[in-house]
């Protein structure tokens, strides 16, 4: 199957972002906190993207910041995904009070915007990487729960699942051999969307000063540090903003493609 151009672009850009994140220490021209130039210098040979509010190299900080942003987003989306899909499948297959209990709890959590809950919770908890990852992961797992429960419910009422039950198959065969293979591609696409959401979420928190704390830096925090420059026409704050937008769009393109493939795969349900 031929890959559309948009998905290819998305995949390449996502790959570049991931590569930079993993090898940030090797690639970045300067260390994270090194003051290597004047305040708000324009692009030059030494500083490709210029310098920031206290004269640090923006490109280096972008690469280091990307590492933190992507790490936190990835970790929290892994938590939300693992927890949400496990509980979602459990609720769909078991039904009864497990389903009722989990579903009502999720209804309750989704009755308040995630950002508001996060703000309330972070006003009490100490703000560090572990807490941020856990809070974001837990809050977002509600969405994964809803989706995976719905997908699993759709599949669980199919005749082939009933046929497996009538054959006498155990629960693990039904979940792993009958339901999971058919639920996989919507869930993979959902993982992409959850990752984007986590990137936006951590960036927003950091921008509000409630996310990644100095001396660590992430993209949202970098926007906050450099926002005053905008008034003087310095574009330093736009660089991390651009990075966030670009990463989100690239992953979105890949997720869109995976989702559209769901129905057209060999043996797919829509075929």
């Amino acid at each position, binding site marked *: 199957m031929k890959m559309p151009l948009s998905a290819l672009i998305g995949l390449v850009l996502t790959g570049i972002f991931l590569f930079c994140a993993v090898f940030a220490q090797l690639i970045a021209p300067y260390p994270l906190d090194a003051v290597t130039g004047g305040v708000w210098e324009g692009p030059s040979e030494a500083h490709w993207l210029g310098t920031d509010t206290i004269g640090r190299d923006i490109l280096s900080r972008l690469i280091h910041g990307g590492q933190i942003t992507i790490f936190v987003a990835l970790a929290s989306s892994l938590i939300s995904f693992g927890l949400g899909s496990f509980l979602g499948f459990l609720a769909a297959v078991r039904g009864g009070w497990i389903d009722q209990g989990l579903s009502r709890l999720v209804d309750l959590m989704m009755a*308040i915007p995630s950002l*508001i809950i996060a703000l309330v919770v972070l*006003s009490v908890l100490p703000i560090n990487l572990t807490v941020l990852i856990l809070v974001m992961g837990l809050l977002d797992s509600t969405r994964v729960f809803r989706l995976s429960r719905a997908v699993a419910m759709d599949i669980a009422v199919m005749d082939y699942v009933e046929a497996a039950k009538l054959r006498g198959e155990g629960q693990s065969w039904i979940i792993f051999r009958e339901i999971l293979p058919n639920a996989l591609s919507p869930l993979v696409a959902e993982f992409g969307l959850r990752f984007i959401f986590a990137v936006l979420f951590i*960036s927003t928190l950091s*921008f*509000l*000063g409630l996310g990644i704390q100095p001396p660590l830096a992430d993209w949202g925090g970098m926007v906050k540090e450099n926002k005053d420059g905008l008034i003087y026409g310095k574009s330093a704050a736009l660089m991390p903003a651009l990075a*966030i937008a670009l990463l989100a769009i690239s992953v979105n393109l890949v997720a869109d493609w995976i989702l559209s493939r769901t129905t057209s795969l060999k043996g797919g349900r829509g075929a």
Partner: protein
Amino acid sequence: MHPILKLVVQRIALGLLLLLAVSLLIFLGTEALPGDVAQAILGQSATPEALANLRESLGLNQPSYVRYFQWLGGILTGDFGVALTNGQDIGQAIGQRLGNTLFLATCAAVISVPLAILLGLVAARYNGRWPDKVISGVTLSTISLPEFVAAYFVIFLLTQVIPIFQPVAMVFPGMSFWDRLQAVALPVIVLVLVVLAHMMRMTRAAILNVMQSAYIETAELKGLSPMRVIWQHAFPNAIAPIVSVVVLNLAYLVVGVVVVEVVFGYNALGQYLVDHVAKRDLPVVQAVGLIFAAVYIGLNILADVIAIVANPRLRHPK
């Protein structure tokens, strides 16, 4: 009782129950977390006596359910308590800022709702052709932006590249309505941009869904004019999904407002909340969090009620 009235009452009752559960979550949830309000206020170096004194004066030694009912009772009678950090009356502080937040959100809604419906209609009308592709492409990229990123792009564009606005949105009591409008122009543009994309895409999907129904084909095969097909056959059925899309996205504005207020230093409820999260002022955070949650839940109830009322099957039961 008419079945539709019964459903509406049920939905509202359910919403109120949910709000009660949310208040419980906000109050007791924060209590259960491993953090100490007194410690947070006084810092790590506080002496045990000082901590004990503070706990006593804050009433922290009472059982949590007692304090919950005191808190809830206070809120129901308009008493939100006092802020830990400066001893200010929270109700009063909220009163001053709520108006500003509502003003900003209302301006954004007044612009974005008609615009989103119009663009959604255009995109659906030219489904798959270039107007649709342009609109969908642009909105897809704005959907990928967090509110503050969109805000700085707009600021850079409209204060530096084309300098027609001031980058801060100051409002103060006694300001004239016109000045106020000018002051919020930039934040409103950002909010519109952020909400518009979601609202327009969902409107487009709702209209397309209706346009693909068999009864639209029936109308076309009756030889009706395209306008009559849309107004007589598509519109009455599309109105419920569109209204609920609009209301759901207004709920989304609730979150957008918090961030945008911070970006522009706009003195309102969202800014107030974020400031006090940083200061770890729990009573303020709980009160403002509850207000945001109430607005959000209220809008969701409204969306459901409209969907119930607009459903012909429920309006004209067998």
